[in-house]
Every structure is written in C-alpha cells, then in structure tokens.
C-alpha cells in the first residue's frame, strides 16, 4: 500500500511554514503515522516526493503505543496521536501539521510548556497527606490517566494558552486532588477547580470525544462539580 504524507513544516528559528510531501509504502495493515515518520527519517538519502533532498522531519515520540502523549499532532486537521493513527484508514493521502494552540518549534514539534505552567499555577499538588479511599478508586484511576498531550485543549472552544481557564488537561488531574484531598486542604483545591476550570467550561464535551486516552472527562467533571462547586459529599 502506498500513501502520500503532506507535512506542514517549519525550520527552527524561521517563521516561514511550508508543506512538503513524502511517499510511503507499507505492507503491515496496522502501520501508523508514527511508523511512517520513523521510517522516512531513516532513509538514506532522505528524498521527498519530488526526489528533492530533505532534512529529517522533526517530531516527538516515545512509547509508540498511545500511552505517553508525545506524538500529538493534527492529522487531517484533527488532533490525535501519530502512533494511534492507522494509515490504512486514511486512503492515499494524509496531512500532518503541528497543534495550533502551542508555539511551533520546528516541523511537528510544539512547545507545550504552557500546559505544565498551568498546573504549577493552580498549585496542583498536595500539601498534606492524601486520603485514598477504596470507594473512589475508579475515579482516582481515571483521573490519573491524563497524558498531558494537549489534544483536548486544541478542540476546546474556551481554551487558549495563558488564559485563566486551564481546560481539561488541568481538570483531569485536578479531579484526583478534589477526590483525595484531606478535609483541611479541600477548600484550596475546590477553589482552584472552580476558578480555573468550572467558571470557564461550556460543557460541550468536545474534549471527551477527542481524548486519545479515552478518559471519561464527563464522569470526572460531574463528580468534581458536585464536590467542589455544589459541595455535595465526595464520591
């Protein structure tokens, strides 16, 4: 099978974006965008579709099995993980571009530091011992699964980098804290949740549909809203 990859590229420290296409042949029905990028970068010499010499395509990957969030990018315009995108599902062309809500460093690499800065800003940690509880185990597990990949932020109508609203990438890990915080620490965490998430979220749930980890963001949100905003007993 053969596919053409159209990649929206940019060199480090240059502003100009350009599209470069590569042809890729594969036989494994499970072959992913990630595999294609790995293989293309190993070509010697590395030629594009017009047989023009090309620099290796810069992108990030690590686990190659949807568990680390490194390889998030726009695939045919939608945010997703390159290692989760099977080529056979895309016909004979596919377009790859960097996520748009973060600064492009080079090619498909964006700097997602703003996600991590947000988490710091909302003091996402415990100052006191957590209160794990068997009854909340399912919720805590779900809330611990966020990859910090940024796909949900990309589709969220209300999120932009450096705004007060921190989006689902913050609300997911925050819901672990909401659920496990000690009685004395609860207040601070509830307030962070209300201010930096609840107040800005329009509940359209685009985040749930796009999340490549399949995190049930609605379930987490409903629980955290009940506890942090409506002050119902935590489940």
């Amino acid at each position, binding site marked *: 099978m053969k596919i053409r990859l159209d990649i929206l590229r940019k060199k480090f420290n240059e502003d100009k974006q350009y599209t470069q296409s590569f042809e890729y042949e594969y036989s494994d029905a499970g072959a992913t965008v990630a595999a294609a990028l790995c293989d293309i970068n190993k070509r010697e010499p590395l030629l594009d579709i017009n047989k023009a010499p090309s620099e290796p395509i810069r992108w990030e990957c690590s686990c190659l099995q949807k568990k*680390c*969030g490194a390889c998030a990018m726009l695939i045919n315009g939608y945010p997703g993980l390159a290692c989760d995108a099977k080529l056979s599902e895309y016909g004979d062309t596919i377009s790859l571009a960097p996520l748009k809500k973060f600064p492009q460093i080079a090619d498909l690499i964006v700097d997602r530091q703003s996600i991590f800065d947000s988490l710091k800003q909302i003091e*996402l*940690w415990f100052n006191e011992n957590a209160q*794990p509880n068997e009854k909340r185990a399912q919720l805590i597990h779900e809330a611990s699964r966020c990859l910090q990949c940024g796909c949900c932020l990309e589709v969220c109508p209300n999120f932009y980098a450096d705004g007060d609203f921190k989006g689902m990438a913050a609300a997911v890990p925050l819901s672990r804290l909401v659920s496990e915080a000690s009685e004395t620490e609860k207040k601070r965490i509830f307030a962070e949740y209300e201010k930096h998430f609840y107040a800005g979220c329009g509940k359209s749930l685009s985040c749930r549909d796009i999340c490549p980890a399949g995190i049930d963001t609605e379930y987490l949100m409903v629980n955290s809203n009940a506890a942090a905003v409506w002050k119902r007993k935590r489940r």
Partner: protein
Amino acid sequence: MINIVGAGLAGLSAAITAAQNGQECRLISKQPSERAQSVLAEGGINAALDTMGENDSPREHFQDTMRGGVYLADPNAVERLTKNAPEILLWLSRLGTGFNMQGDKLLLRKFGGQKKKRTAFAKSSTGKIIMTALIDEARKYEARGLIHRYPHHELCDLCIKNGRCSGLVISDIYSGKILPLGGAVILACGGLNGFFEGRTTGTTQNDGTAAVIALARGVEFADLEFIQYHPTTIGISGKRCLISEAARGEGGRLFARINGERVYFMEEKYPELGNLMPRDIVSRESYMIKNRADCDGVFLDMTSISEDVWSGKLSDLRKECIYYLSLDPAKEYIPVEPAIHYFMGGINTDIDHKTNIEGLYAAGECAAQYHGANRLGGNSMLGALYGGKTAALNIPHINEDIPELPDDKLNLTLSPDIEEETEKALYDGLGIVRNEKNILGSLERLEKLGDNTNARLAFAKAILKCALERRESRGAHFREDNPETKEIFKKTTIVKAERKNGEYITDISFRDIAEKTNENKA
C-alpha cells in the same frame, strides 16, 4: 547543586528526595516525565506489606529476589531494598497513588518468581498511576524553586577528570544550544532499548546514548549480558507491546498448540509455580517449544478470568488486545512471543548507588543493581524508586558553577545503515538461547564495520563480549554450549573502556559478589 539525568521513576524519586532535604537539583530529560518509559509499567510494584494474610515478610522478598537473580545481586543492597519496600509503598499511598485497595489496605497480586502475593497494582497501568502522583509531588518543589526542570534537554557529555565528575554538558533539543552545568550527577536515564530498536517493549527515548557517553568517559558497567526477554508480547507497529505478567498473575495460562492440541507446557513442567516461574525460564520454555516442528505457536489463555477481574483489575489490558489484535482475551486465545523487556546490566554502583567515579551516581534501569541475572516483575519500579532516593541521600554536595570540560569530543552516533547492522548483529548474538559461535559471529560483523573510534560501536561490542566471556548459563543468559550454572561464575561481570590513540579498548573482568555483612544479616 545535583544534576539528575532522567525524569522517570528513578529521577523523580531522586529529585523529590533531594528537594525534601532542601537540596536544589536540576531534573534533565529529553521529554517531560509524562513521556518517560516508567509510565508504561503495567503489572505492579513489590513490597512485603502482608495485607493478604499470607504471613509475608521482607525476608522472603529478599530470598525470592536473590533466587530470581540467581545470586548475582548484591545481597546487602537487596536486603536494604526489601526492608525499605513497605515504607516506599506507604509513601506512595500518602501521595494518593490510586492503587487497587480493599478497605484501607493495598490489594496485592501474585507475580512471577514469588511465592506470596506481594505486588501492589493499579489495574494494569501501575506505572502511569504512580508517575502521576510523583509528578504532582515534584511540581510542589518546582514551585518552591528546589527542582529546576530541563524538560527538552539531552545529555551530551559528562565532565569527568581524574576519577571525579564535576558536572555535565547538555543540549536543548529544541534549539540545539549547548549548556555546561556544574555539580554532582545522578544518572537515571533508563534502559538500553536503543540498541534493539523496534524489538523491545520500551520507549524510543531511551536510545542508549547516555550509557555510551558514560562508558566512553571511564564509568564502569556491569552484567551487560543479562537482558530480560518477557515471555508475553505482541507485535504492533514499530515495537513490541507487552501483555503484562498480571494476566498470568490473575489466572492466565500459557499453552503451545501441538498437533492441534493445547499443551499447557509451563504447568506440566513446573507444577508449583507453573505460569508464574521467573521470566527467564518462561521465555526460554516458550521459545524452545515454539521452535518444535510440530508447534503452531504459543498462546495466552485468559478465558477463565472472571468478568469482575477483567473490569476491576485488567480492563486496560483487555482494551489493548481488542485494539491491536481485534481479539477479546476474555473469549479468545492471544498469540504471544517473547521480546526484550528489561536490562539487568548497566552502570556498576555500590550499595549507595555511587559509581566508580567521585560525584557520579546512577539509579533505576540504567544501573546494574538489585536484579542480578534476572529481574523479578514488580522489582524494577521498586528498585528505581528506592535507588533514586538512596542516590540523592548519599550524593556529596559539589558546588561548582562551571564544570571542568572534557578535552576531546566523543563520536556517539552511527549512520542509519551502520546502526541497523549493529542492532541486527546484537540481536542475532544475544537471543534467548546463545552460543559462542553466534556471539563471535556478531562480534566479527561489528569489527567489520571498522571504526574503533566510535563510542556507540564500542558499547555494542562490550555487550557481546560480556556474553562471550560468561561461559555458563544463569538467569537471562542461556548458553546452549555451556548449559550449566557454574560456581566460578557467581561473579559480577565488569566492563571498562579505555581510549588509546582515539580507539576504544574494552576490558571485561569478573569481580566477587559482596558477602552479606552482619548489619544486614537477618
């Protein structure tokens, strides 16, 4: 200032420990912690918490670990590890790690090579769930200015002179900018996957470069021949995907299809531990039976696992089988094969995690500590956490702004085709079953690639030389030409490299295992 290279479990544990003691550190990694290999760990983490009413004890954890590692691990280090394991787990609990629980106690599952239930877990995503709790904890100290993250930075060189490390050189992967940094160094840079690209269950980030730098700069390595093959993996695009040992811990059974019949070979041959024998043995048995002419493959039979266990303890694993194989493991058999999973060997350290170089420590999978000839499942996350902590507690304070830079440059990379040939040769020489002829054949292939000034090639050769010199079978190192375990090889393999006229010369020797001291005698 402490410089920590690697932000997985070992690096995070070191950084948090340092920060708790008011010590500033830099946490340097190619990508943020969320992307480290540690998030992939599935099955669980060991500690003799004895919450399952089986009368377990650190003593038995010690014995199982030593036996599993076929007595090559340092008994004093293992003693400390197993004694401190319960406290590590309680610490993780206080951080709110989402372990599976029963009431207020941690649930424990059965894992390979251990006679009692000793493995705490969070379904089959234990590594991810622990990492989340640790990342949150580290963030607190980042905000307090004690942990400084360098999250898109890679190690370029270690500043080692006259047996002393004064810092390191890193580069910003985004911009290519080079930064020399002074202070003591803890290496927590993970395993050697990059020497076996596409053939392991690990990440592409751990490409082995950090280890290559260390060897080239005179750091001693140990036991590189011990490479763990995990018996149950499946092939997915670009890599091997693990089917956690938890599948067998919760009742999964391995069988070979022979003449159309299911032969549960592990249960037949090893009635006591059956499918939960240590990994080296399960992988070897699978490999041997699969190679029989009448065998149609090895499968994992998880069809007897109950719905409750699937949903409560193994839901992630089930989803994975359905996604990658379109097979529901609750109803269908899963075809599995062994693949490279863990590197027992690595940087040689003492019990405090110090290397042969002053001011340089190593912890986690990059260090050869605790696991001997074969690691027990669930012991490596424990080893990474305890090792990182121990390193941070013992490392001397070196306050140097500017490190003493090395005089020469290292040649660390190979062109894609030479890299590919190197990796193929390694794989051919370092299989589950090895012999002198194959190992020598692989060494010759590497010699043909010429270039004795390339540090990566020197490292690759060193791994093969370790496998060559250990003329016995022990743990993960099985030599069909020397199938017995020999008392004279109850020793640590030590690897050192020297550079003469630009060319690397590696030296392999054997060193006695430490005696158990009185302090550590139970």
